[in-house]
C-alpha cells in the first residue's frame, strides 16, 4: 500500500512547476457554455494548476489527446453518459438528484461533437 501525505508538500513547496495546463483561449470558449458543465464538471475539467480531471487526463494521454474535455472531438454521447454515471478512478459518479437525465442529455451533446 502506498501512503501519501495529503497536501503537505503542496502547501509548502513549489513542486508543481510546469504541471498545470496554461489557461488559453480554446475553441470551446467560443460556444455558449453548458450550464451543467459549468456547475458540475468545470471544477475539475477546466484549465488550471489544480484541476484534477485535466491533470488526470494529461497524465493518461500524455499529449496524444487534449487534456481539456471541451477540446476533445472524440467524445460520444454514450461515453459521456458512462463517465458521468459511473465515474472513473477517483472521479465519482453523479446521481440523478445532482444531474438529471435531461441535463445529462444536454451535457453529452455539448461535449460530443461527432
Amino acid at each position, binding site marked *: *500500500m502506498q501512503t501519501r501525505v*495529503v*497536501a503537505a508538500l503542496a502547501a509548502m513547496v513549489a513542486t508543481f512547476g510546469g504541471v498545470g495546463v496554461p489557461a488559453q483561449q480554446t475553441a470551446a470558449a467560443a460556444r455558449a457554455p453548458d450550464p451543467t458543465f459549468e456547475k458540475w464538471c468545470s471544477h475539475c475539467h477546466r484549465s488550471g494548476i489544480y484541476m484534477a480531471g485535466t491533470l488526470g487526463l494529461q497524465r493518461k494521454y500524455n499529449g496524444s489527446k487534449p487534456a481539456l474535455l471541451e477540446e476533445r472531438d472524440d467524445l460520444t454521447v454514450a461515453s459521456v453518459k458512462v463517465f458521468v454515471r459511473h465515474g472513473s478512478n477517483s472521479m465519482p459518479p*453523479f446521481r440523478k*438528484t445532482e444531474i438529471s437525465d435531461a441535463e445529462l442529455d444536454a451535457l453529452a451533446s455539448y461535449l460530443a461533437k461527432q
Partner: protein
Amino acid sequence: MPLPPDVDSKRFAAAMRELRTIVGEQWVFTSEEDVDLYRDAYTPFFGEPEEYIPCGAVAPASVEQVQEVVRLANRHHIPLWPISTGRNLGYGGAAPRLSGTMVLDLKRMNRVLEVNDTLAYALVEPGVSYFDFYRHLRDNNHKVWMDCPDPGWGSLIGNALDHGLGHTVYRDHFDSHCGMEVVLPSGELMRTGMGAMPNNPLWQGFKYGFGPHVSPIFGQSNFGVVTKMGFWLLPEQDEVRSHIISVRRNTDLEAFLDTMSYLVNSGLIDSSWQLVSAIRGSSDSEIRAALAAHAPDAELERLGAAKNLGYWSTRIRFYGPSAVNAARWDYVRKRMATIPDVFFSDGKVYTFPMDTDSVQDEPDDLFAKGGLGIPSLAIFSLGARNGSQGHIFFSPIIPATAREYRKALEVFRQAYADLGLPPLNFVGGWSWYRRTLVLLFNMPITHDIAGNQRMRANYKRLVQIGAEHGWSEYRTAPAFMDDVMEQLSFNNHALRRFHETVKDALDPNGILAPGKSGIWPKHLRGKA
C-alpha cells in the same frame, strides 16, 4: 439489491409504492443502475461481498415529505441513511453502514433560506453545496464569505454534521452552526435553540436557547434528520494575507509549537495552519537520498539550509484590516524571533473589495482559494497525479505539542515498519481545531481486492495503535466506525451505552442510520 433486514420483497415493494405517492414516481430509485449511484465511489470493499449497498434511494423535496418518509420507514421497518449531498468522499460517500438501508437523499432540498449581511449568518437546507452557496452569495451581492472545506461540492450541513473543517476564522463548521431544524425518528419536527420559540428572530443569533443545548447531538449521529441549519459567516474582510514561518533545526520544534500555542490560544492567530517539514517531505533528489540513507539531522539541516528549506514550517493567514494584520504579523515575528535562525516569507496579499472570481490559483499554496472561502476541487489534483481509484482517510487527532507530535511520528513510523508499509518519513499535522493537530494519512483505494483487504486490516491496526497511546480519530468512514467507537471504552463503553439509551428512546424501531458512528439500534446491536 439487498433488502432491509427482516423485510421481504413483497413488503418492500408495497413500501416503495407508498413511497412513490409521497415524493413522486421519479424520486424513488430502486433499479440497480440508479442504486449504484449511491454506492461509495471510494469503497474499500471494491469487488467484495462485504460492500455496503443500499436497497434504494428516495429524494424528498420538502420537510413535510421527509416527515412522511420517516413515518413510512417506521411502519415498514425500512432503515434510512440520510445524506445531504452525499459527497463525503474518503469518509464513506453516500453509502450506508448497513446493506439494505435506504438512502434518504436530501439533495433536492437545496434552498438558501436566508443570508443576513449585518449579522453575518445564513440559514440553508441540506442540499445546498459550497459551490451553490458561493454562487448564491455572489449573485446576490452579499457582503459575507463562507468557510469551505477543500472539496467544494459537499453540503454545508453534511460537512458540519461530520465535524468538517476549513481554513478561516469559522473553519470549525460545526462550532459555527447556530440553530437547527430536525425531523426526529418519530417523524416529528423540532427546532433547537431560539428556534423553539415561535417568532423568535434569534434562531441564528443565539445558540443555546433555554434548557439542554441539544443541537450538537445531531452531528456524527443517527438521532434525527437535519433539514435546516444556521451558520455564522465571515463578513467580507479588508485584507487577507498569508505568511510562512520556518525554523532551521529539528530541535526547534518545541519552541516553535509553544509559541504557536500561545498565539493561537490568545486569538492572535485564528486560521487553520499545517505543521509540515519541507525537509522531510521534500521532493528534492539529494534530500530524498539523504532520507533514504537515514542521514542524521545535522546533515538534513545542512542540506535544508543550502536549499533554504525549513525543518519545520507552517503557513498562517490573517483576516482583517491591513494595519491590524500588519501589527499582528509584527508581533508574531517578535515572539518567534526568540528561536535562533527562524525565517519568514510572505504569501500573497489580497485586498478587498475585489472580484473573488478573479482570484487565481497559487502554485505554492493549494489552499489560497480555500483561505478566501472560494470553493474548488483543487484537493483532488493530488490524487490525479498517481491515478488512484480513490482514497480513505485515517485521521487521528493529537495534542498540538512537540512532545505528542514527536511521539506520534515515532509510533506511526514504527507501525508502518511493522505492517510492512513504505517508510514514513514524516506526516503533516493540520491544526484546524485549536490545541490539536489532525494527522492525515491518506490510504489509496485500489481495484486489487487483496490490496484493499490489507489496507483495511492496516487501518484497523492503526486505530488500535493510536488508542493505545491515547489518540483517536476525529472522523472516519462507515467501514471503520465500529472500530473507532470501540476504542472509546472508558467505564465499559459508558459513552456508547449512553448513546444507545438515547437512540432507543428516540428511535425505538431503529430506522435512522443504523450503525452510524458505531451506534446500533437495539435489534441489531452486536449482530451487524
